[in-house]
């Protein structure tokens, strides 16, 4: 799939660059707290659970479930309404905002807790967005 022009473009910072390098390479990178072993998101070079700087970057499975969403019905540059703005819960625990592709944008098709998998969609040479689609074989 290709994205429509006009979608707001994220600008990586020193603390988040690894995440965006990861999506460009087809990997969903999370971080893990060295004290508790718990995964967290969004990226930062320390643990929000204990404050330790002892953290590691690891590749997530890309599996998630649909936690909640809205279906927006008004025009926004880069989007064709109605479109869902979703929050998914990753298998590793953290949640992230995303869009659901390869799925009708309707309450009937978008069922809470349905299994999803990550899909990397290129925005430009630097930015690739992590979107999600219904899990294959689900």
């Amino acid at each position, binding site marked *: 799939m290709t994205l429509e022009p006009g*979608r*707001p*473009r*994220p*600008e*990586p*910072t020193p603390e*988040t660059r690894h995440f965006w390098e990861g999506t460009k390479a087809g990997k969903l990178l999370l971080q893990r707290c060295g004290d508790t072993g718990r995964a967290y*998101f*969004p990226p930062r070079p320390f643990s929000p659970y204990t404050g330790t700087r002892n953290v590691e970057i690891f590749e997530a499975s890309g599996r998630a479930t649909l*936690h*909640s*969403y*809205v*279906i*927006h*019905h*008004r025009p*926004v540059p*880069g*989007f064709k309404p*109605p*479109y869902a*703005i*979703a*929050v998914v819960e990753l298998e590793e625990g953290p*949640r*992230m*905002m*995303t*869009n659901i592709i390869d799925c009708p944008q309707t*309450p009937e098709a978008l069922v*809470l807790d349905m299994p999803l998998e990550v899909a990397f969609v290129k*925005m430009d040479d630097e930015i690739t*967005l992590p979107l999600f689609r219904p899990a294959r074989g689900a």
Partner: protein
Amino acid sequence: MTIKPGEIAIVGAAESTRIGTVPDMSQIMLHADAALNAMEDAGLKPSDIDGFACVGNMMPQQLVHYLGITPKWVDGTGVGGCSFMLHVRHAAAAIHAGYCSTVLITHGESGKSRINATPRPAEPQSLQGQFEMPFGPMGPPTLFPIPVLRYMKTYGVTHEHLAQVAVVQREWAAMNPRAAFRDPITIADVLNSRMIAYPFRLLQCCLVTDGGGALILTSADRAKDFPQKPVYILGSGESAEATMVSQMQDFTSSRAFRVAGPEAFRMAGITHADVDHLMIYDAFAHLPLYGLEDLGFVKRGEAKDFIWEGHTRPGGKLPLNTNGGGLSYTHTGMYGMFALQESVRQLRGTAPAQVPDVEISVCHGVGGMFSASGTVVLSNQRP
């Protein structure tokens, strides 16, 4: 020494002369118009004010200069629409500490006419700019309702339950000549109104208006010398969680509410049974439900039935959002000031939809998308 319930009082309170569509006032003048009305209400001049609070980048400096105030205490806390609850709490502490004696808190927002309005840029390097904005949110109607479907699934809340919130608040607004929307509505009207961001339709989203409001606080010992009946601050609470709604810990409950609310009750030394009147900032129809549960008025999942059974409507045992709320009265963008004004009116006995025998009012605000919270417990009786 710990601040005591009732030690600080609100002695001046007013809204801007007009609210709704005010195309002949810029944002700073809406602040000033409300401030002048509040000073008139309290019988004070700018030279009597020695503490000042308002929300907005650099706004305290602009406003004290505009109004001719020389403050020795300044607060520019800006955590969204509940900033005024935090200003009240901070001002009470400052007066208690002796930093100042008379604090003016102002709000003005040209939310509809957008005359010198505050821009709300989504900085693409911010965390929200990187991890929310690329996925298509466009303002609060697309962000604030994001947890709602999870809340509905968890507690069996129906679209009709969420429509009933707007229906009941319109009943209150019908009694208020200043309310933007006063015609009665039915659940069918709500569910047939234009879809904005499923599951919410137009009548479940707040208004966008122009307006302002101002409060004046001083010590309770001085309050008896003012022309208006004092409204005493019994307790207050505040908290913050996250700027990104996608990162709130629990989509069925606000952590910021669960910290601010109980702290205000604890400080005030009251129980829920003591509360005669309640305001819960209603930017969208789910907020009164979250507020009733997170403040402990009902158990988790029970707010839908509490509202459905009529307990919050006119004549009910817990009158809620008696001005009509952000859904029907007014919503400039930062509605918390208007919720506080209604609590003050109810305690003075001057509200258009006056509830009989109000002695204690709880006023609860939200900032951002469940990002922050402030709760104030007010009374017309000093303990």
